[in-house]
């Protein structure tokens, strides 16, 4: 697929999601009466709100207004905090980025060396040990792991704060929770990527030429193992965003994840739709970047004709 076609497809997915949100919002009935009690609000006020948010005219007119508002970054008014939804979400963003960034680093710090060791000992005792831990980590839900950490470090040992943000100590447990659970998945991917790379003919031929195992590992195995690992990045970004909704709630971390949970409970639709579209945008852009990186990393895909 050419670059233009990929970008077009990304836009198509984004448009599909925006449209689905619009359809779902309209399917529940008059959005104004969902927000205001029609019996206790003057008719003129309702009409004024209709004008302000573009809920007038045919459904198609409303759809056009809706799209143009979103393109201008106007997602509506947060009923929960009485402010612009855009600024409500944006002020929560740094906390989530900090959490997800640190967790991603921890995930790689665990996953790459452990996965490599398991692959190099494939079938051995160490490998089986690592894979058992990976299966356990995969079945351990975020909130169970988080509560277990709170029980251990906050309730029993009284070492770490269980709730809130501010110091580095606050960051430890949420990062451990997301980092460890994602490392369980990532380790498996690293292991199988390296195992696949070890089977390549270039590795066999390098070995036949008498190249040292160390050099084979760095010059042939690692570059080839990078390709599948790059492909799963969007998957892991999505998984971390999803995990932040639960983990931020467990640890009282004031980020976007907790915001979406609060907003859903309060049915603050403006904030929810803003977050959904932001996540969709991030995921689609990540996918696109991965596609681009892939053709840079693997010259074969760039040279191969489109199919």
């Amino acid at each position, binding site marked *: 697929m050419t670059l233009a076609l990929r970008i077009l*497809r990304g836009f198509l997915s984004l448009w599909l999601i925006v449209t689905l949100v619009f359809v779902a919002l309209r399917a529940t009935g008059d959005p104004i009466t969902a927000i205001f009690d029609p019996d206790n609000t003057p008719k003129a006020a309702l009409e004024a709100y209709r004008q302000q948010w573009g809920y007038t005219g045919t459904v198609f007119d409303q759809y056009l207004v809706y799209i143009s508002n979103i393109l201008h970054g106007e997602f509506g008014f947060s009923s929960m905090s009485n402010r612009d939804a855009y600024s409500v979400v944006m002020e929560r963003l740094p906390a989530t980025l900090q959490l997800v960034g640190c967790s991603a680093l921890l995930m790689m710090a665990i996953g790459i060396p452990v996965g490599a060791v398991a692959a190099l000992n494939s079938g051995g005792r160490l*490998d089986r040990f690592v894979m058992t831990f990976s*299966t356990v980590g995969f*079945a*351990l839900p975020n909130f169970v792991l988080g509560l277990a950490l709170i029980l251990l470090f906050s309730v029993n040992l009284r070492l770490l704060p269980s709730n809130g943000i501010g110091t580095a100590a606050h960051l430890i447990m949420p990062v451990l929770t997301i980092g460890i659970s994602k490392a369980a998945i990532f380790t498996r991917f690293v292991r199988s990527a390296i195992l696949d790379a070890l089977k390549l003919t270039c590795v066999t031929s390098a070995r036949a030429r008498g190249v040292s195992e160390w050099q084979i590992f760095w010059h042939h195995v690692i570059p080839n193992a990078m390709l599948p690992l790059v492909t799963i990045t969007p998957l892991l970004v*999505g998984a971390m*965003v999803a995990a932040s909704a639960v983990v931020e709630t467990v640890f009282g971390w004031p980020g976007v994840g907790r915001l*979406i949970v609060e907003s*859903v409970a309060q049915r603050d639709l403006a904030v929810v739709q803003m977050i*959904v579209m932001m996540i969709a945008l991030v995921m689609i852009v990540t996918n696109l970047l991965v596609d681009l990186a892939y053709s840079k990393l693997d010259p074969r895909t760039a040279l191969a004709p489109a199919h």
Partner: protein
Amino acid sequence: MSIATMVRKGGRDFLLVPPGVLLAMFWLLACLSLVIVLPLVSHLDVTAIDLRARLSPPIGFGGDWAHPLGTDDLGRDVLARLVASLRTSLAIALGAVIISATIGTLIGILAAHLRGWVDQVVVAAVDAQVSVPFIIISLTLTAIFGNNLYLFIFILGMFGWERYTRLARAMTMASRGRGYVLAMSTLGFSWPRIYLRHVLPNIASTLLVTATITFPEVILLETSLSFLGLGIQPPMTSLGNMLGFGRSYLLTGWWIAVAPGLAIFLCALSVSIIGDWARSVIGRI
């Protein structure tokens, strides 16, 4: 994967079940029988309140046999609530997997049969579904339509449909060129009959393994949403709901959260161990 190598080492016979898988099967069977038998034997009252035994600890931590797993802050029996929650969570997850497997497979077969624009739309929908984390989609639907049980089951029943669709579509397309399908269509059998009676049994094992692998994820999704207070609502209980409630009592009654937490973990672990094993067995047939 580790299980597959263990099987291979254990001999040529792949039906040799490794001990870990046996243990997982045993645990699931124990859970199932507990969920089915216990309500028949004793009256499970999840809302019965024993005010004199509030926050009583489990046996081994100073508790007595009246409440083997202790009680919560209202004096409700943790074991009774655990069994009831397990029943709700397992039943919902099972129902959801059946719904998504049926719908997903049908869409996949239809796309493979009709081809053309229908196929294009299905592929685009699968792509769109993959691009947004499912929990975010379920949160959005809950925000828009409000929280109720039917919506919740619908949401869980959507989970993973694209996996079955993808598989069924690819395998149906592949089977169209096979001799038996050509023979059947030449003999004049109708397409629904060929697909449902002949193609489906041939691809069923792969779909079943996918369902096994999806099952723990559905349990985790259900418990996550219920934990956040956006799934099963009281007076019904589910494992996630119970854990979310027990979260407030970590200081005074840790067992309220530990019991459902362990149950979720062990059930999800057992099903994924069995799923991994099944996948390795299928892969070698």
